[in-house]
C-alpha cells in the first residue's frame, strides 16, 4: 500500500510525519536537529530514502544533513558555500553596494535522476550544486554573473534564492526565483541565465516594469507542462504559458493577492492553490479566516476552501515553501503555518484536518508519495 511522508522544517527542528495511503492516522517523528532552524528538507525523486536537510542557526551558521534511510539516521556533509571568484557586490536596502555574504541555504532541490546531485538556493542569492551527495559544493556562477546581479536587492527576508524548478523534459532547463530580484531561467544547465520578468509589475520599485527588482515569493510548475509556470509575487498571482518569457496576472476574484505559497494539483495541471494573506504589512489571513483558494482554470476564477480550517481569530502565516502535494488519487494537499499546525486535505482541498498542531513555526513542507 502507498505511504505518504511529510517533511516539515520548523524554526526549532525537523519533523517527519508518516501515514499510509488513507492519510487518516499520522506518526510524528522529531524533533530532528532540535533547536536549529530547518529552512528546508527534501527527498530525492530518484531515491526517496535519500533526504537532504538545510540546518542553520545565527550562532553556528549552516549545516547540511543527509539521510540514506528516510530520516532514521543522518550524516552531516559539507557546509562550505564559497562564492566563485571575487564575490563583488549587490545592492543593499538603501541602494548602496553591499558585498555578497553567504548566510544560509533556503532551498535544496535534488536532481530528478541522480540522488547524489542536488542544487542549493542560498542567501545572499546564488545557486550551488553538489554532484557527490553534498560532500562538496560549487557555485553555478553564471547566475550571479549574468549581468543584473549587482542590481539585485534583498527583500525583508533577505536576498534569498528560494525557488528551484527542474524541467523534467529538459535537464538543461532550470527556473529559479529570488527575493527581491525576480525569476530567472537557464536553458544550458546553468552556464547562462536570463531574467524572465516581462509582465510583472511592482509598484514598490522606481520602474514598476523593470527587468529585475520584483519580489517573487514562490513559483510552481506541473511536470507534464513545464512551459506553464505559476507565481505568487509579493502582490499579484501570475501565470506564464511560455516558460516565463511573458507573464499575465491571474489574481481574478481573490480577496487579496498578497501571499507566499502557490502550488499545482498533482494530476490536474490547471488546478492551482494559494493562501491569500492580508497585506505586506499584516502577514496573516484576511478577517482572521484561514482560507486556501483553489482555481480549476489556471487562475482568475478562485473558490475559497474552508472546511476544517479555522474561520475566526486565526492570524498565522503560511510561508513560501510550506505547501506541497502528494500524488495519490485523490490528490493530497498539505501546508504548514507559523502557528505550528500542519493541515492536510486528502480530497484535493475540499476538507482539511490538522495532522499535527503544536509544532514550532513551520518554515517548509515537502511531501513524498512512497510506493
Amino acid at each position: 500500500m502507498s505511504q505518504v511522508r511529510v517533511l516539515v522544517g520548523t524554526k526549532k527542528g525537523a519533523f517527519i510525519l508518516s501515514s499510509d495511503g488513507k492519510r487518516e492516522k499520522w506518526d510524528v517523528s522529531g524533533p530532528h536537529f532540535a533547536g536549529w532552524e530547518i529552512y528546508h528538507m527534501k527527498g530525492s525523486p530518484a531515491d526517496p530514502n535519500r533526504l537532504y536537510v538545510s540546518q542553520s542557526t545565527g550562532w553556528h551558521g549552516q549545516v547540511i544533513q543527509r539521510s540514506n534511510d528516510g530520516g532514521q539516521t543522518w550524516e552531516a556533509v559539507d557546509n562550505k558555500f564559497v562564492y566563485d571568484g571575487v564575490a563583488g557586490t549587490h545592492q543593499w536596502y538603501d541602494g548602496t553596494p553591499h558585498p555578497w555574504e553567504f548566510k544560509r541555504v533556503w532551498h535544496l532541490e535534488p536532481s530528478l535522476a541522480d540522488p547524489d546531485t542536488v542544487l542549493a538556493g542560498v542567501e545572499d542569492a546564488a545557486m550551488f550544486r553538489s554532484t557527490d551527495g553534498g560532500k562538496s559544493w560549487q557555485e553555478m556562477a553564471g547566475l550571479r554573473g549574468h549581468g543584473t546581479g549587482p542590481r539585485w536587492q534583498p527583500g525583508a527576508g533577505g536576498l534569498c534564492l528560494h525557488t528551484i524548478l527542474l524541467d523534467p523534459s529538459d535537464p538543461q532547463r532550470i527556473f529559479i526565483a529570488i527575493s527581491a530580484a525576480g525569476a530567472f531561467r537557464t536553458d544550458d544547465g546553468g552556464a547562462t541565465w536570463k531574467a524572465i520578468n516581462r509582465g510583472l509589475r511592482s509598484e514598490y520599485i522606481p520602474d514598476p516594469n523593470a527587468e529585475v527588482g520584483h519580489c517573487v515569493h514562490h513559483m510552481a510548475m506541473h511536470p507534464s507542462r513545464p512551459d506553464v509556470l505559476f507565481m505568487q509575487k509579493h502582490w499579484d498571482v501570475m501565470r506564464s504559458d511560455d516558460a516565463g518569457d511573458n507573464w499575465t496576472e491571474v489574481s481574478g476574484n481573490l480577496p487579496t493577492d498578497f501571499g507566499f505559497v502557490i502550488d499545482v494539483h498533482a494530476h490536474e495541471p490547471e488546478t492551482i492553490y494559494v493562501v491569500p494573506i492580508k497585506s505586506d504589512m499584516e502577514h496573516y489571513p484576511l478577517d482572521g479566516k484561514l482560507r486556501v483558494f483553489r482555481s480549476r482554470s489556471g487562475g482568475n476564477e478562485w473558490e475559497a476552501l474552508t472546511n476544517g480550517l479555522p474561520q475566526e481569530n486565526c492570524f498565522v502565516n503560511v510561508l513560501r515553501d510550506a505547501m506541497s502535494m502528494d500524488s495519490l488519487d485523490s490528490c493530497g494537499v498539505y501546508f504548514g503555518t507559523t502557528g505550528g499546525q500542519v493541515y492536510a486535505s486528502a480530497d484535493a482541498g475540499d476538507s482539511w484536518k490538522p495532522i499535527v498542531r503544536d509544532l514550532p513555526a513551520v518554515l517548509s513542507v515537502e511531501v513524498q508519495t512512497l510506493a
Partner: protein
Amino acid sequence: MIRVVLPGHLRTLASVKGDVELDIEGPATQRSVLDALEARYPVLQGTLRDHVTKERRAFIRFFACSEDLSHEPPDALLPEAVANGTEPFLVVGAIAGGCY
C-alpha cells in the same frame, strides 16, 4: 592537554559528551586550539569561524579564567591555566534570549 567546553548545539552536532580534551603541539592559542578542534571534529568547520577568513562568527564568544578572550588576536597565547588544562577554554553562544 587543553579542555574545551562547547555549547549544547555543537556537542550534539559533534556527538560529544562533556568537555573535549585536546593535545596541542606548540603554543596554545585560539588558532591552535580551534585548528585542533576542527581537525578532530570536521563537522565543526564553519560553525565557530568562517571557512575562508577564519574569523570568529559574530555570535560566538571565547571565555577562559573569567575573562572574555573573544577579541584577543588568534595567535595570542592563552592563559597558562588553560594551556595546562587547569581551566577550560569556553566556547559560548552570545546571549540572544527572547528572540523566539
